[in-house]
């Protein structure tokens, strides 16, 4: 047991007697023990048995599959195919995010309490309060349904193809972006916007001159991160027939074509890394 020894060490380092002891550590220990106690049944319920990964048969299967990844498939016709699929995946993600913004921005502005004029006097008036709750509820509904479920629904309506993927991403991401935008705006320093409202500016003016200058870097980097997530989503949606890299991966997995998988995974890593660089650049360069 390492824990009691560590505690003894702390006690020795703390010097004389119980007076020097951190009064909070007993509580911390309790919470840690409680968390471990709760985690155990969860792991059991999830049938989490990592050691099956390490038995001889599993190792042989994994090794065989991974070995087929080398060398990556770099034949020109396949690369052209991958390029086209990649372009389609990025296009689905970007269109989806753009549509999601159309949903998210108005909903976030509706939901954001920092831009409440009625709250200036003290309590928010009942009608704006109900409106804000309605906007929050709408966003919760939109993002509760996973994009995969939306996609399966839209595939039935509009048929197989990218349209279903774009619509699915637009709805789920509209809800997610709207919620987090509203929270970023509320946690930004609202004093500047509040004073503008007091001095007679409108909500949108207070947003543009008071809140956005304080929150735009956060908003920008969160949007780019969500775009990165949308690329991943659109790959997953490809597996259910939305086209793009996902659909191509599905074919390669079924054909046990490891070389093709390797190439596509590398493209995928490059995409995510590019999104990461873009986000870092935005945070640095946005004035």
């Amino acid at each position, binding site marked *: 047991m390492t824990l009691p020894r560590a505690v003894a060490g702390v006690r020795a380092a703390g010097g004389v007697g119980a007076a020097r002891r951190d009064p909070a550590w007993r509580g911390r220990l309790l919470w840690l023990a409680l968390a471990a106690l709760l985690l155990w049944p969860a792991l059991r319920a999830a049938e989490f048995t990592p050691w099956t990964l390490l038995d001889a048969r599993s190792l042989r299967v994994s090794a065989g599959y991974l070995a087929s990844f080398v060398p990556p498939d770099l034949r020109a016709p396949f690369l052209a195919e991958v390029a086209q699929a990649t372009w389609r995946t990025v296009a689905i993600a970007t269109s989806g995010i753009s549509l999601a913004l159309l949903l998210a921005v108005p909903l976030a502005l509706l939901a954001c309490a920092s831009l409440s004029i009625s709250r200036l*006097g003290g309590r928010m008036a009942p009608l704006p309060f109900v409106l804000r709750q309605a906007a929050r509820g709408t966003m919760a509904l939109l993002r509760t349904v996973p994009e995969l479920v939306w996609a399966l629904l839209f595939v039935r309506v509009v048929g197989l193809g990218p349209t279903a993927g774009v619509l699915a991403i637009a709805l789920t991401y509209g809800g997610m972006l709207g919620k987090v935008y509203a929270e970023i705006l509320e946690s930004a320093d609202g*004093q500047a916007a509040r004073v503008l*409202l007091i*001095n*007679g*500016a409108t909500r949108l*003016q207070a947003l543009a001159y*008071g809140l956005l*200058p*304080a929150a735009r870097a956060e908003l920008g980097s969160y949007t780019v991160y969500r775009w990165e997530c949308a690329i991943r989503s659109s790959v997953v949606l490809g597996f259910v027939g939305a086209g793009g890299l996902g659909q191509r991966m599905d074919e390669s997995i079924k054909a046990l074509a490891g070389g093709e998988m390797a190439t596509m995974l590398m493209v995928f890593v490059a995409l995510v890394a590019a999104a990461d660089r873009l986000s870092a650049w935005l945070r640095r360069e946005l004035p």
Partner: protein
Amino acid sequence: MAGPVAPLAAGMRLDLEAVTLRRPGASGGRRPILDGVTLRVAPGEQLAIVGPSGCGKSSLLLAAALAQRPDAGSVRLDGSEAWAAAPRRRQQLRRALFLAPQAPPLPPRQRVVTAVLAGRLPMLGLWRSLSSLIYPDDIAGAQQALAAFGLGERLFDRVDRLSGGERQRVGLARALVAPARLWLIDEPLAALDPVRAVAVLDELCAQARQRGITLVVSLHQAELAQARFGRIVGLRDGAIAFDAAPAALHEGQWRDLYAGDEPPAMPAPAPALPPPIPAMCR
């Protein structure tokens, strides 16, 4: 500087009537921040509010700026009952007043020119205000306002490159471009050195007088208030202790205003000077 006020029609009339303001969420037992304050300010008048820290100076300005709804009493701007009016009318009244809080409300990453021009927002439509973010709408106006406070050179600097005193002056420069007829300025000199403080206060008073704007300033510096204002309102424990011309104030009143933690001792002989000490009847 405490001369008679030019009777221009441009200034806004401000009437606070028995205004009581409690801390949000405070129970009835605790002393309110403002306790039945009555204050009438004529259009174009200039007055200073003085008093110890925590006496309610800032809250008085917030109540006058329609930023805090009083728990009791009324706030009238140009004679209209602000909190009884429709929200649209109230927002219209807010457009005609300018509140400068003690901590200048400037986003750190904004440029000075934008921060100053934000004062003009009430008279701009949405498109004009958005296009002003891309190319500043009135560079000359912003520069002139900054120059009045000795900051003409900092027009295109970012707010977070300024010192505390410079930020405070940027916040005041915003008043000069605002379409307001009532200036409510909270501790404008808090971050300034003594020499600069006098110049800034003089500029503020002169600009307000020139435009006929009603000016209410809260000040820590009792001497400056006495030297520059024709009317001084002493606030203590959320109530008005005196409201008079500086010449009419005697030393005992000043001493009582800033006296230790004991409750304000009302001097026994009621001074014959106008107005009587509890100025609520004014």
